């Protein structure tokens, strides 16, 4: 019998404690022990959701130090979307030039050296839906957190970065696509985008700028990952965050998201999810309202409330024909297939290594690879 590593990548219908971080200054409306459905309101909150910079000097074609005389409102004054923000009357051979406010906000500052103004968005009230079927396990008003005992599908990445964030899953490309900057826009704000085989550094930067909550990608260049995560380590970490959560499912380089994982995201495209880059996981609420019975019947130890989990487990399991495996070695990295046969004697590779080989069948071809370069997946 020959063993191989088995990596857990997906756990369906897992009963877990999910922590909801409530934004702003929330008034929590639920209590411990209360049963909830996705549409129930957990809390009401007021959110200060950031600011927007506008370069008035560029838009009016004036010197940055002169912009103050063209701006029509005072600092700290409210302005609503579409109202006049700045105006420059026509010159001898020119036209009137005007800038209207792109959003409701407050003029926060005027920078006469760059010609930019900063509009902070008006605080808005929001109801925070529960998003999960389950039971409220614990409420912490001081830290604005609510723990929910619920049923989720967990998808594990190989590595990740960034704190826990919530958002709506949005597939923005095929699993083999390259995600470039033009694919990222403001409509993706507060979404967890599911990309393809590789996301470029500029696309990550644009995602942070547009307020994207999270990125799921098959591959990433090691240099970009180091810039985001602060380094390469397999040790559990909780500290890194650059304003976005990233989950890398396969590895480094251009690597299509595994078919197993991509099919889960296709199923839940447009649904709410929680991504935690530092714990290498994404949690997707169960859509089955009958799961509440399972949630009720399964006891979870209280220690799990604060105990960090989430690193995908590795186990050793017998490799047999018919099992689904994923290539993790340098050649064909990321390919998935079924084991057709396992050699009974060792072979010598061009590199000089002598090892057992297996023939696997992917969607497109049959390939023979060292067993050490394969991992069993469910």
């Amino acid at each position, binding site marked *: 019998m020959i063993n191989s*590593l088995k990596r857990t990548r997906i756990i369906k219908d897992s009963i877990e404690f999910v922590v909801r971080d409530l934004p702003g200054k929330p008034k929590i409306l639920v209590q411990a022990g209360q049963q909830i459905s996705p549409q129930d309101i957990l809390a009401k909150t007021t959110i200060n959701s950031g600011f927007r910079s506008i370069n008035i000097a560029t838009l009016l074609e004036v010197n940055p130090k002169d912009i103050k005389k063209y701006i029509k409102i005072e600092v700290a004054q409210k302005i609503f979307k579409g109202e006049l923000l700045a105006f420059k009357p026509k010159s001898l051979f020119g036209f009137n030039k005007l800038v209207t406010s792109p959003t409701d906000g407050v003029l926060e500052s005027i920078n006469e050296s760059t010609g930019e103004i900063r509009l902070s968005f008006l605080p808005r009230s929001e109801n925070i839906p529960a998003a999960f079927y389950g039971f409220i396990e614990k409420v912490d008003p001081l830290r604005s957190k609510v723990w929910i005992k619920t049923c989720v599908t967990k998808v594990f990445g*190989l590595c990740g970065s960034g704190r826990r964030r919530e958002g709506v899953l949005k597939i923005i490309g095929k699993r083999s696509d390259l995600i470039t900057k033009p694919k990222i826009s403001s409509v993706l704000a507060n979404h967890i985008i599911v990309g393809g085989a590789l996301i470029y550094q500029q696309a990550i930067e644009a995602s942070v700028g547009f307020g994207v909550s999270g990125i799921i990608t098959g591959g990433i260049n090691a240099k970009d990952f180091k810039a985001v995560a602060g380094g*390469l380590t397999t040790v559990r970490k909780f500290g890194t965050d650059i304003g976005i959560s990233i989950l890398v499912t396969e590895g480094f*380089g251009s690597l299509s998201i595994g078919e197993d994982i991509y099919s889960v995201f296709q199923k839940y495209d447009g649904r709410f999810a929680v991504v935690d880059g530092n714990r290498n996981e994404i949690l997707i609420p169960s859509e089955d309202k009958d799961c509440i019975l399972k949630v009720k019947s399964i006891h979870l130890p209280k220690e799990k409330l604060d105990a960090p989990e989430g690193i995908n487990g590795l186990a050793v399991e017998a490799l047999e024909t018919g099992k689904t495996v994923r290539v993790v070695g*340098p050649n064909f990295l990321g390919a998935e297939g079924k084991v057709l046969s396992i050699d009974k004697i060792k072979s010598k590779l*061009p590199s000089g*290594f002598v090892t057992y080989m297996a023939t696997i069948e992917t969607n497109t071809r049959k390939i023979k690879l060292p067993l*050490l*370069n394969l991992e069993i997946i469910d």
Partner: protein
Amino acid sequence: MPTTDPFSIFKDLGVISPEEIIHWLPHSLNVFYIENYIANKIYYPQTIPQTKEDLALELAILRVLLSKTTQFYSQKESKFIIPESVVNYFPSLSQVIWAYLDVYPAKGVIKVVTKNQKLHILGTVIVPEITKKEGLVELLVEKKKYSIKLGDLTVIPCLSSRCDINFFSENAKILGKNEEAIEVFGGNLGLVIDTRGKK
């Protein structure tokens, strides 16, 4: 299964730069490929290279990691210490010794050991002092004669625990002499003689 991770003993794998690795590569490689290869090796340490090019890359990584520490070479005791994970991983011990000789300024007669719970002797490396880079080194090892061209790195099998050797060369010296009879350690590696001169 699973095999031992050869680089787990080194702390610097995640921070070495591709430029350092390129210096030791016999072929050109894209910087992204090197960076991503290392990162994948960190997360999938059980994997092995399939091609000669990837093996050369892993040996270049080994050279860079060795160059960042002195814990695997004792100049005072004239000893190479090879981590057991490295011995068990690479297909040929002579490739590993080549990496050691490229990195460390070893001279004379060097004992090669591997370390797990205790030390095991693997063989001996002889690095003669080269006075002129032409001609031959004549070696008599366990009554078998070898003629080695100066400028080469040669591995001679010597499986017994100790081997008697006779050294002779007009243009190379060991222990300050052109001709010498000594007893050295043998083992799985055997006897390696490096007549390449100054690196």
